[in-house]
């Protein structure tokens, strides 16, 4: 899909407020049992910008995303979104606070996690209709519009198993967009795809970035990060080792661990 000859996908609430920082994370901590996954994570994402998280497996980058969507509850630290919602994980947040946090972001999963018993259209409108209680006609029209823009309008009545991996992931992205979140979270969205299908999904994500969506992306696609990210953060051992503009971080990494990691990605054998 070319970003130039298509109408832009509505960036929802992400352009309405003027506060420059959409997401602020301070001293986020998380342990699983006795294993400390996140030591202390600090992040800031400016409205309309793309942050890419890279790092070795087990470094905690996916856990950061999951904490932002409330799929994991952090043990300590603070997350604030758009300056209007602030959650202190030190004082065990309640269900309401977590729901409010979840409400502001939407996640795209590595394995798509589409609902297999629902058609493509039903997958997309499930959140808007049954959770957000929006009128069915309106939600359906918007969903069809979004599906049309990712080239899947004719698949509206197909079940997920009838789609290719790339198509399923595009539906996953549309399902996230339909929730009209302020923040889009991507957890290795192309890792489960066959190589020839990766381009479709990355292309769509690039278009979303150009349209001003605020995104946090965990990925190993360095070329994509270089092109699309405003900032790249390298996470290892539960801390952000290094962060910066992609061109800078990739060409002149400061820390030894960053150098080693990038080297391994560029020269796997």
């Amino acid at each position, binding site marked *: 899909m070319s970003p130039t000859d298509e109408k832009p996908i509505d960036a929802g609430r992400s352009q309405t407020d003027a506060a420059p920082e959409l997401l602020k994370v301070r001293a986020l901590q998380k342990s699983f049992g006795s294993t400390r996954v996140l030591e202390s994570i600090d992040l800031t994402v400016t409205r309309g910008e793309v942050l890419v998280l890279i790092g070795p497996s087990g470094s905690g980058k996916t856990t950061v995303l999951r904490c932002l*969507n*409330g*799929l994991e509850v952090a043990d300590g630290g603070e997350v604030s979104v758009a300056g209007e919602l602030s959650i202190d994980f030190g004082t065990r947040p309640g269900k309401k606070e977590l*729901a409010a946090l*979840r*409400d502001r972001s*939407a*996640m795209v*999963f590595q*394995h798509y*996690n*589409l*609902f*297999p*018993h*629902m058609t493509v259209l039903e997958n997309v409108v*499930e*959140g808007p209709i*049954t*959770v*957000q209680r929006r009128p069915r006609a309106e939600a359906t029209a918007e969903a069809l519009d979004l599906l049309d823009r990712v080239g899947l309008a004719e698949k509206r009545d197909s*079940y*997920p*198993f009838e789609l290719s991996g790339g198509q399923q992931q595009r539906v996953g992205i549309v*399902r*996230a967009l339909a*929730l009209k979140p302020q923040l889009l979270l991507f957890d290795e969205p192309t890792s489960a795809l066959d190589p020839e299908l990766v381009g479709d999904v990355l292309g769509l994500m690039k278009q979303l970035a150009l349209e001003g969506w605020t995104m946090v992306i965990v990925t190993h696609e360095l070329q994509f990060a270089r092109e699309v990210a405003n900032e790249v953060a390298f996470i290892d051992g539960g801390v952000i080792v290094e962060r910066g503009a992609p061109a800078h971080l990739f060409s002149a990494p400061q820390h030894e661990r960053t150098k080693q990691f990038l080297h391994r990605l560029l020269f796997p054998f």
Partner: protein
Amino acid sequence: MDQSAWNLLLSSFWPIVQGALAGTIPLALASFAIGLVLAIAIALMRLSRIRVVSGIARVYISIVRGTPLLVQLFVIFYGLPSLGVVIDPWPSAVVAFSINVGGYAAEVVRAAILSVPKGQWEAAYMIGMSHRRALSRIILPQAARVSVPPLSNTFISLVKDTSLASLILVTELFRQAQKVAAFSGDFMLLYLEAALVYWVICLVLASGQGLLEKRLDRYVAH
């Protein structure tokens, strides 16, 4: 087969079918419906993180599976009156069979819920669903597909188990056969006839299972 045996078969056929229509089938349907609701509740309790709750479910399942159905039936019909609780034959049977199905099917439902990938819960939470809504909209519909074959087994067993209700005076298929047999003295013929009617009912159920599986499989790759 001589003429008198043939006549006996014909004359007993209607009372036996009547026993099936008025006894066996409604008894099985009612007990299965109530038992299934019970099973879902017990399965959810069993999966609860609250220890006491899952403990209660565990004990329930253990007792139901660890004691004979006939004993359960007798405790309810012949035992409870000594505590002042007198229940008619029909409701006694429904209570006993429902409790029994609840125990067995709970394990089926629990396994089916656990078979739904964790990512489905996460996607449901991600779009903003509560635990309860995720369960009813996303998890249970998927668990239903997995549990149709084992639940069909439970149902078919139940249909046959309802013959035990004859021992607490419920007029059902087998009791009708017993009555005619006692009257005519031809036990072999009448009990085989009863067996044949049970078999036909179960054949119908099995084909129903096939249709249901086909319908629920429409969203699965083949």
